[in-house]
């Protein structure tokens, strides 16, 4: 312990550079993990936190809510499938709105009040009870979407302006990283016609299904897909996982994270291997004057632990500072569990790669102190 700390105190730049590099790498890992979770939640939070057991898309939409419409005859056929207790329209669209005196984008979800498709994570206020009331995403409360605020749908020429009043806030109900409002389906229809007065018909994007008590949503979804032409029914989780972009974003990030997890221990292992080579003479001498291999190995491992923990602490501080400057818009926050888990994973991997250096310390032959040899390769 004493030896390890003294050496580190005397070579601050060397160990500082390593801790800095490890810190930067851990920061990148933390940032990307948080970005992935934040992005996925903000892309599909509205699907994840609504009450329908099954969502029925148009098969042509490829699980894309924006590209899906359900025709009247399909909606009727869905309601008649065994296991379906309630089938109600659910509409989704992106609109230009004025909220908090500012023009911005917002996503509207229109559902039948009291039916499947309502938000399930209400944290303040109440659910809508009329066609002009809305539950808003709590993340955007400060952007003009707080309880009592009014949100104006900007109409195109010929359309009528529509105003919604926010009566409740729900957690993690964003969609496509935009402020999101859950409103009555009739209100959604009005908003659609406001931006497109030429619309001949406002069709639901999907049908939200509540299954009968005891029925398995996956089985009901399969029965709907098989029984109703041109539809693709998905359980809530399937809809979340199958959303366009989510699977590919997860795959891409996983690959990059894997590479980062490989690089951190390699950098640490490389450093301690070289250090061990450099200290070969001193280590051999220590062995020759009677120091057992144990304390030398412990000293090495203590240094690995200190370097990784300092790097992780540095990364956490930098990450926290980063979240203060704009991370909130992407839903990035410092969560203790991922920070601790990442630190532990990196530490274990770093200790494993430093085994190469440990092996070399153990192979030092004290007699080499008299012959000029050192660490054996």
């Amino acid at each position, binding site marked *: 312990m004493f030896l390890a700390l003294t050496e580190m105190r005397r070579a601050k730049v060397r160990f500082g550079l390593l801790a800095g590099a490890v810190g930067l790498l851990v920061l990148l890992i933390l*940032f990307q993990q948080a970005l992935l979770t934040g992005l996925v939640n903000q892309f599909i939070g509205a699907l994840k936190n609504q009450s329908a057991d099954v969502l029925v898309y148009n098969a042509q939409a490829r699980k894309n809510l*924006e*590209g899906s419409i359900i025709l009247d005859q399909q909606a009727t056929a869905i309601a008649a499938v065994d296991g379906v207790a309630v089938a109600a329209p659910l509409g989704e669209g992106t609109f*230009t709105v004025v909220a908090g005196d500012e023009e911005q984008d917002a996503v509207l979800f229109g559902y039948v009040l009291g039916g499947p498709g309502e938000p399930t994570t209400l944290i303040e206020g109440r659910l809508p009870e009329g066609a002009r009331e809305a539950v808003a995403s709590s993340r955007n409360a400060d952007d003009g979407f707080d309880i009592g605020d009014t949100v104006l749908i900007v109409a195109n020429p010929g359309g009528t302006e529509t105003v919604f009043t926010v009566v409740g806030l729900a957690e993690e109900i964003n969609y496509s990283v935009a402020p999101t409002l859950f409103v009555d389906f009739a209100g959604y229809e009005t908003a659609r016609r406001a931006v497109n007065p030429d*619309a001949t018909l406002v069709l639901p994007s999907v049908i939200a299904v509540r299954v009968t008590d005891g029925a398995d949503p996956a089985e009901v979804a399969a029965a709907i897909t098989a029984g109703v032409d*041109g539809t693709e029914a998905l359980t809530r989780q399937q809809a979340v996982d199958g959303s366009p972009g989510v699977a590919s974003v997860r795959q*891409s990030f996983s690959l990059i994270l894997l590479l980062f997890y490989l690089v951190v221990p390699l950098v640490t292992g*490389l450093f301690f291997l070289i*250090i061990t080579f450099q200290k070969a003479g001193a280590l051999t001498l220590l062995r020759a004057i009677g120091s057992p291999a144990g304390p030398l190995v412990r000293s090495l491992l203590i240094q690995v632990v200190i370097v990784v923990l300092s790097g992780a602490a540095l990364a956490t501080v930098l990450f926290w500072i980063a979240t203060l400057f704009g991370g909130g818009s992407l839903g990035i926050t410092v969560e203790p569990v991922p920070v601790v888990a990442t630190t532990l994973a990196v530490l274990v991997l770093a200790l494993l790669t430093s085994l190469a250096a440990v092996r070399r310390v153990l192979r030092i032959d004290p007699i080499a102190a008299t012959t000029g040899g050192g660490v054996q390769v």
Partner: protein
Amino acid sequence: MNLALTELRRQPSRFAVATVVLTFLSLLLLLLGGLLDGLYLGSTGAIRAQRADVIAYSESARDSFLRSRVTADMRETVEGVDGVTEVGGLGFTLLGATVPGEADLADVAVAGYELAPSGVPDPPPAGRAWADDTLQDAGVSIGDTLLVGPAATPIVVDGWVEDTNYLQQGALWVTLGTWREVQNANRPDAFVADGVVQVLIVRGDGDLAAAVDEATGSTSSLTRDQAVNALPGVKAQSSTFNVIIYSTLAVVLAVVGLFFSLLTLERTGLYGVLKAIGASTRRLFAGVVLQAVAVAVLAFAIGGFLAWLADRALPGEVPLQLTVGRYVFTFVALIVAAVLGSAISLRRVTRIDPASAIGSAA
């Protein structure tokens, strides 16, 4: 110089770990850059290809193509603006399409146009399309009749165009009439009346954006580059990926710096001897830089090959696109980081006293 190269040749194992770490880092840089390029190119091709001085949206659309509605009256006003020489309508509809003989649907962006973008011929006859060649991956061939959207609107593919995709969906370039037919049959809630388009492609001279917006009072006009950046996610993706890429480059710099400063420390005695027999600091330092560059070049070569393999192995939905430009950028960035990193050893090399060769240091 020869000494540095000889050491690399005779003791490659000494540099192996640094090479492996840099290989991983160059692979990371290429994959990160490739993802950024794939997302950018696949989302913006249809707009980058436009030969437009400005693109005019309806004011309330907040620069979104899909929400913009430009009426015939607005178009007439734009056509009368001083300096405007050509005006053409443009509209997009994102849908799934059934491909003959394929079980899976293809994601398509039906693009109605009047003024041909670069690389796209003049509009084909009604009901026919020039298709982006990436749709070949979905099994599309020339002569195929694609059934587009829930209404299964037929569109026949007449030929291929390149790099014209829109929001990661394969573009089908059709006449404005065919686009309206597709839009109205498949999206009745977003019906477009005759004469209505999403945006206007405007060509001409002078400060067109200001002139057009002032004349209509109901448009918001952007240059082509601004329109590209206004596409959903483009700016956020670029800034996020660039932060990660430049942070990774900082790690490369730290790794090279760490490795070569340790190596220099190890060779202090040897450098003392070399200096004592007349080797200059410049020569010794050039050797360190040469070794750093050699390690970086080798790491880039292996990392580049692994990235190419990853590109082939990854499923099509991962938007990885490795361009020559990305390889060149990564190579140059790695070399610069290697040179800067190795420069950390300069102070140490300079401070070595030749007199230290006499005595224990050697």
